[in-house]
């Protein structure tokens, strides 16, 4: 049987080394981040503000615009 040339082993050794160094994501095997529900789906508790409908994204966005403008004296002062 013909002996294997040493230089032919180089790619095999490199592949083995790379395989040893690579792994999955750092969290693999550990805790996995949970998915979060969007805020417009509502909190489902008694503290939800009035004036919008939970589960309706457009309604929530409008509610956010109203609340932001609540911080603006220039519109509050004029009754706008």
């Amino acid at each position, binding site marked *: 049987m013909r002996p294997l040339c040493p230089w032919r082993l180089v790619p095999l050794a490199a592949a083995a080394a790379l395989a040893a160094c690579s792994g999955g*994501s750092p969290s693999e095997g550990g805790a996995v981040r949970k998915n*979060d529900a969007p805020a417009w789906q509502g909190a489902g508790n008694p503290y939800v503000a009035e004036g919008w409908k939970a589960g309706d994204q457009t309604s929530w966005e409008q509610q956010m615009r109203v609340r932001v403008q609540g*911080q603006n004296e220039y519109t509050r002062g004029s009754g706008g």
Partner: protein
Amino acid sequence: MARMKFICDAERCIECNGCVTACKAEHEVPWGVNRRRVVTMNDGQPGERSISVACMHCSDAPCMAVCPVDCFYRTDDGVVLHDKDVCIGCGYCSYACPFGAPQFPANGQFGLRGKMDKCTFCAGGPEDNGSAAENEKYGRNRLAEGKLPICAEMCSTKALLGGDGDMVADIFRTRVLTRGKGSEVWGWGTAYGKPGGTPPKTGTTKS
């Protein structure tokens, strides 16, 4: 889709720490953790200025980039949140954050570092919106209740504004144009000096 941001008007902040107190009370933040702080420059000298600082919910957040366990995520509204069940409390995020937002409760006799805690923009965490589990780990989820962060809504002088970045920027711009000053207090010129002008004063800072 909104991109939630805070902005603090240094011409209006009176260092009352109402935002800090409101945040701690609303979320029952553990002892030793301040999700929000008021920072004062040139304290006690003429021209002193204060701003309220918390997580800025960066668009390209360095905390997310360095986290070795990928516990951070960004909501559709641009709020940077994290999962405490994944966090290992390593502290990389606190080194990466330029605002000192990540906090670690010292809940042990020898300063044991617990899970990271930071401002959530009052948007809770990955647990069910408004649930007891979410409230216990992250505090109230006011966004899911149709409200804005308590710090901004409680601010008595309306120095601290929170909400969609474009809208709060419009409010701030209107103020600056109306009073004719105030935009120069914080920013590039304060940090690095103005072109052809004098370098910035070195003053005392407290928080």
